[in-house]
Structure formats: structure tokens, C-alpha cells
């Protein structure tokens, strides 16, 4: 066992953990903001809007994240029109490509999670809001959104854990997050077990923290659903 190699490289792991957290939080935050209006649109009476959003989520949920990342990072770079466009300074950065891909992917899942929760709201809650004479915007803000978010907390919590784990794919396009650090150590010291076990432990700590946060959130905001079940 070569644990001294890990001890010597703990600084790299700390940097990697920071990047992993940044990728996770940035992707989830952007996706969260995008998913709320998209979930409403997914249930809209406007068939064009509903199906356009449906088509987007099918494409991004129907293809592997790694394939999406390679298409956006390596695939787009193949076209000289893109390399010469004003977007290239952004798209040439692996960090931008990775976050864009993660956002597109997790937004697709989150939109469906939120939209599913909306569809399962008791009709009475929505009718009561209408009967109160709330405008569609007020209805969305005060009734639909809070009910949708509390009801999808458990599923959404799973999606955030999946996103955290999916950030390990960023290492395939040169970003040194936790998995990238482990792979670099593997390639320079020819050991596999120690670097990846260390990476796994870091992911586990992060995952457990996320799960705990969601349990607290659930107790705080979705407690009324529990009481109803009991």
C-alpha cells in the first residue's frame, strides 16, 4: 500500500474537492432556476410549448451525459464556423463546456421531476386558488411553485446526488476535480486502489452532507405532507 503518495497529494485532492463542489453547485443552481418555468411550460395548455419542452427533455434524458459532453466539448470544436464565432472564447474553455452540458442535462431531469409533481397536485388546491381570484402569476408564485417544490423534494434530492456523482465526467475533458486528481495520481504513480478509494471517500462525505441537507429541508418545508400520510 502506498498511502504516503496520497498524503503527499492531499493538497491536490482539496483543490479537486473545491472544483467538484463548484461544478455541482453551479450546475444545480442554474438548472433549478431554469427548471421552474420549464416545468410550468411542460404542463401548459399551449401544445407547441408543451411538446417543445418535452422534446428537449427526451433528447437530454435519452442520451448519456458523457456523449453529450464529448459532443459539446470536442464535437463543436470541429466546425470552423464555431471556432471563428464570438462564442469560441467561451466554448474553448473546458469549464464552460462542462457546466453548459451539466446544466442542459440536469435541467431536463429536474424539469420532468417538477412537472410530474405539478401534475399530481390535488385539483382542489388549484381550484381554490382560482376561486380566490388569483391571477395566473400569483397562482404560480403562491400555490403551484411551493406545492411543486415540496412534493418533489425527495426525487429532486436524488437528482442532486446524481449530479454530484456525474461531475466525475469532467475529468475526461482535462478538469482536475476529485476523479481527475485520482486518475492523475494513478498515471504518475501506477497505483489504482489508494487514489480511487480516497476519491470515493470524498464523494461519500459530500453525498451524505447533501442527503442530510435534503432531510432537513424536507422536515422544514414538506412536513405537512408527512402528517397527511400518517
Amino acid at each position, binding site marked *: 500500500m502506498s498511502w504516503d503518495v496520497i498524503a503527499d497529494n492531499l493538497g491536490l485532492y482539496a483543490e479537486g474537492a473545491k472544483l467538484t463542489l463548484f461544478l455541482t453547485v453551479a450546475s444545480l443552481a442554474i438548472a433549478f432556476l431554469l427548471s421552474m418555468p420549464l416545468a410550468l411550460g411542460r404542463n401548459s395548455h399551449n401544445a407547441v410549448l408543451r411538446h417543445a419542452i418535452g422534446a428537449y427533455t427526451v433528447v437530454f434524458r435519452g442520451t448519456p451525459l458523457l456523449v453529450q459532453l464529448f459532443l459539446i466539448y470536442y464535437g463543436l*470544436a*470541429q466546425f470552423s464556423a464555431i*471556432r471563428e464565432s464570438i462564442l469560441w472564447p467561451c466554448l474553448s474553455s473546458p469549464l464552460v463546456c462542462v457546466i453548459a452540458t451539466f446544466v442542459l442535462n440536469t435541467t431536463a431531469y429536474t424539469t420532468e421531476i417538477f412537472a410530474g409533481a405539478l401534475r399530481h397536485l390535488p385539483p382542489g388546491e388549484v381550484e381554490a386558488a382560482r376561486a380566490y381570484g388569483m391571477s395566473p402569476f400569483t397562482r404560480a408564485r403562491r400555490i403551484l411553485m411551493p406545492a411543486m417544490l415540496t412534493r418533489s423534494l425527495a426525487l429532486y434530492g436524488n437528482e442532486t446526488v446524481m449530479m454530484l456523482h456525474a461531475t466525475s465526467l469532467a475529468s475526461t475533458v482535462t478538469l482536475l476535480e476529485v476523479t481527475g486528481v485520482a*486518475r492523475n495520481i494513478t*498515471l*504518475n504513480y501506477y*497505483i*489504482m486502489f489508494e487514489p480511487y478509494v480516497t476519491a470515493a471517500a470524498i464523494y461519500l462525505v459530500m453525498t451524505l452532507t447533501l442527503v442530510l441537507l435534503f432531510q432537513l429541508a424536507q422536515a422544514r418545508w414538506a412536513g405537512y405532507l408527512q402528517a397527511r400520510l400518517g
Partner: protein
Amino acid sequence: MTIVRALILGGLLAVSPLAPAFAEQVTIATDATFPPFESVDANGKLVGYDIELMEAICKAAELDCNIIAAAWDGMIPGLTAGKYDALISQLTVTEARRKVMAFSDIYSHPTFRFVGKKGANLDIKPGGLAGKVIAVQTGTPMDAFVTKTFPEATIKRYDGGSAPYLELTAGRADLHMSYEAQITHSFLKGDGAKDFELVGPQYTGKDAPEFGEGVAIALNRRSAELLEKINDGLAKIRDNGELAAIDAKYFGKN
């Protein structure tokens, strides 16, 4: 079900090859992202200089060899863990690598070069290339050399041998360092390479210790018997001209 399974097993046993001189099959791994040395062709078959060389050695040494593709990052740990018996993947022999694995006799002495955009006029000297992006395959002699020699440059590292070229043509990297033979006989022959050329000096193991002593087949340090057989096979194909013929086929040398 049991009968079907028995028939299938029986069938498999019946077609297994005759026992070779070396009792077991020898599993040899290669990172097939490095044409013309090792790559996968359109039919999924491993092809290239190293593959032909290894097949010739196995035949000369009467070894039953199974050459398989493996990912670069798992190759050396796989060898030390005993998953593979040997590696042939243009592995340069260095001090650091000798500590974890054994090497056969050296079969070639590569030169290393930068490849970059034509007319970029980069000043390639130690400590230079400030702010330039150099793409290399992680954990290779090229990686070790540029990391030490160009601390002012940004070094981007990739798991495979082909990704750095994609980055070079995309303009994400200014330079890529690799085996000169790989650059000239693979990348520069491709369609996307007309704006690129070899740049800077030729490097060999004499210029920097990172470039090692030469290229050899890597083995587990416990496999003394297999090492001897592979060295015998290598000596045989060197004597009977097969090695020279493979060299000529790929690189046009005599």
C-alpha cells in the same frame, strides 16, 4: 439448460488452441490510441507497428499471445496487479518505471518533437513558452519533460494519445509533444493537419532523462521466465530480418 450449457462449454474447449511452449496464454495489453504504433481499425481489430512486432515475437518465441486493448490509465496498475502479463505500447524505459516493472530488451530509440501551427514562430527553449498551452498525454515521458522544462507554459493533460491532436486542431492548444514518428506518420498525414508542422528541436533520451533509454515491452517483475522468452523472440526476429521488415513497412527505414 444444463445440456445446452454443457454443449456450449464442450464447443469452447474443442476449439481452444493447441498447447503452446509456454503453458498459459499470455495476455498483452496496449493503449490503442496511438497510431501508427497501436490503434483499432474499422473492424475493431488491433493494428499497428507494436501489434505486428508483438505477434512476430510471440511466433518466434512460441508463445500463445492474446493482445488486448486497455485504457492507458489502467494499464500499468493492471500489469503490476497481474491482470496483464505484458504491455506493448511504445513504453519508454525510465528510472521511475523500472522501480515498478521489468522491461524486455529495447526495440527502438524514438525521437520526440513538438507539433504546432505553421508560422507560429514559437521560441522553444527551456523556461520559455510562457502563457502557451501544451497538450500531452498524462504520465508519459513527454508529460514529465514539458512539466519540468516549461514551467511558464500551461500544460493540459489527456488520458489518451489522440485527444491532444483534437485540441491542437481545435486551437485549444498551441503545441503538442509526442513521438516524432507518430506525428509524421499519423497526424500529419491526415486531412485536418495541413496547417500544422513539426516545430522545435528533436529530443532523445540523451537530451533529457525523462525521455528514457528507449522503447521496450513491459513485464511484471515476477515474470523472469516470460521475460527471457520475449527477449529470445526479439533476438530471433532481429536476426532473421523480420524486425527490419516491420520497420521498413511502417517507417521506410532499411
